[in-house]
């Protein structure tokens, strides 16, 4: 390869390996319960990948990301359950609607920086939660919206655990590929530059404000898809899923996995989805253990878990090279 090769191939390779593993997983998986959790993991990966594009790539904090997840879920849920739209149209409407709202929210808030942006997005999240809970005639209020149909395209209904698994992970694959491509593009570099130094990026000709708005909308689009998948998956939606605590959970997943790295959100979302399931065996201690694990990760691996994998791979390569030399 040339002296300035893009180093894209290795990452595409690992993404292909990962997706092949995911595709083959149902063949060896123990049961439907496991597939179910994998489905949720997929939804969280989609959410966290979107959030990571905003926070990890571009360095803009959002403490209200669950609001866009909720908006995507409610638009899709209400249109199908109350107005009888086919889910595929509802999904398109939910992505479009959420993007428009994100644009309206992003234009004023992204003029703010750092803590101020954090506070503004926090406020936006709380407002949305209140709207979901109070618009009872549409959303079913605090007790939730019931009878949301499963996803169907024409006469094919995606209702089984296996069908949902592949449907969700198909979207995850698209989302991951998009994030991977973005990371090594002209735009990805501009976003990274904004994270590094807002002022220098601006002086190099990057329209920082415009890029921040674009990326805010894109990350909301990821959340909208995740929301739509979610609501048709569990056929029900309630406002508390999209409160402040879940915005923090998404943030925790990204940070534990490794903020700014491509695999970070995948690792973080997978671990924090599966961990509570395994901790159930230690009833009563689960919250404590969960907290201890998070504190441990942050104390000993402040960069998150993703760099750990990279170090292992490098060591493996070095060891291999050493063997080859002998």
């Amino acid at each position, binding site marked *: 390869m*040339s*002296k*300035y090769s*893009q180093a894209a191939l290795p990452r595409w390779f690992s993404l292909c390996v990962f997706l092949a593993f995911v595709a083959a997983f149902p063949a060896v998986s123990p049961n439907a319960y496991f597939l179910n959790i994998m489905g949720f993991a997929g939804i969280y990966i989609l959410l966290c990948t979107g959030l990571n594009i905003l926070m990890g790539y571009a360095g803009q904090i959002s403490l209200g990301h669950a609001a866009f997840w909720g908006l995507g879920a409610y638009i899709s849920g209400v249109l199908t359950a109350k107005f009888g739209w086919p889910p595929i149209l509802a999904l398109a409407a939910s992505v479009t609607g959420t993007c428009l709202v994100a644009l309206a929210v992003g234009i004023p808030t992204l003029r703010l920086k750092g803590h101020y942006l954090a506070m503004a997005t926090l406020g936006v999240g709380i407002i949305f939660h209140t709207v979901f809970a109070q618009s009872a005639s549409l959303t079913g209020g605090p007790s939730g919206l019931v009878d949301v149909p499963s996803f169907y395209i024409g006469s094919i209904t995606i209702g089984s655990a296996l069908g949902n698994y592949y449907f969700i992970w198909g979207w995850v694959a698209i989302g991951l590929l*998009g994030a991977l*491509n*973005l990371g090594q*593009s*002209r*735009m*990805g*570099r*501009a976003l*990274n*530059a904004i*994270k*590094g*130094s807002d*002022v*220098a*990026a*601006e*002086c*190099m*000709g*990057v*329209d*920082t404000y415009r890029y921040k708005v*674009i990326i805010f909308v*894109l990350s909301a689009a990821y959340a909208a898809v995740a929301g739509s998948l979610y609501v048709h998956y569990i056929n029900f939606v309630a406002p508390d899923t999209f409160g402040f605590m879940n915005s923090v959970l998404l943030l925790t997943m990204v940070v534990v996995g490794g903020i*700014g790295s491509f695999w970070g959100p995948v690792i973080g979302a997978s671990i924090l989805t599966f961990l509570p399931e395994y901790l159930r065996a230690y009833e009563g201690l689960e919250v404590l253990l969960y907290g201890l694990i998070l504190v441990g990760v942050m104390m000993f691996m402040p960069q998150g878990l993703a760099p750990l994998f990279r170090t292992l791979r490098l060591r493996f390569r070095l060891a291999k090279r050493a063997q080859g030399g002998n």
Partner: protein
Amino acid sequence: MRGEVILSIAGVSKSYGGLMAVSNLSFQVRAGAIKAVIGPNGAGKSTLFNLITGLEAQLCGGIVFNGCHMKGLKPNRRAALGLARTFQTPQIFESMSVLENVLVGRHLRGKAGLFAALLYTGRSRREDLAMRDHCYQVLEKVGLAHKAHEDAGDLACGQLKLLEMARALALDPKILLLDEFAAGLTRQETEHMMTIVRGIRDEGVTVLLVEHDMHLVMNLSDEIVVLNFGEKIGEGTPEEIQKDERVIEVYLGTEV
């Protein structure tokens, strides 16, 4: 082109609270020249650079660059007109490689937007390769090509200054603003920098620089502006400045 006025500062003022950082300042920079701005600490040199690049807005007065009024233009629009700068403390994108840093300087020469990025289109890929090619050459020009794929955060101070220079040059600027590019450099590194700056000038790029090193300023610049407390107290060739009574009194001292 050469010899015409490319940058004109006319009656520009800027104050912070009651303090006048730049006060009714006027001077012109001719195309193809190296012009230096000197003055004691707090004379308003950095503020002047921030006003020209649009990071701060002036209170009154006008800045005209290449026939274009800069009022109300954001820094990125000014960069698009051909105005590039370096920073006193290097503003490097630390999580990126050296080459990627320079590629950000090349940003305006690319077109690929969000959808090209997400879909990784053939056109965006070709555009990217061409940009990489060019940026690598810029790195070769400043002598940093051997570090192209290293993390920018790992560079030494002198190399950071070179990287900032390369990043600004990747923009293909008409005028380059250098804010204390020799600060913290060794004698040898400074000489290397001066060679680069002369090379840039010979390629037709105008240079406006702020510098404390008098040896450097006197050797390198075609013209000098001297500021004190935000006001211009002298302007002319290095020889004229060295003889100017008022400049010697407030700044140069008697030993020069």
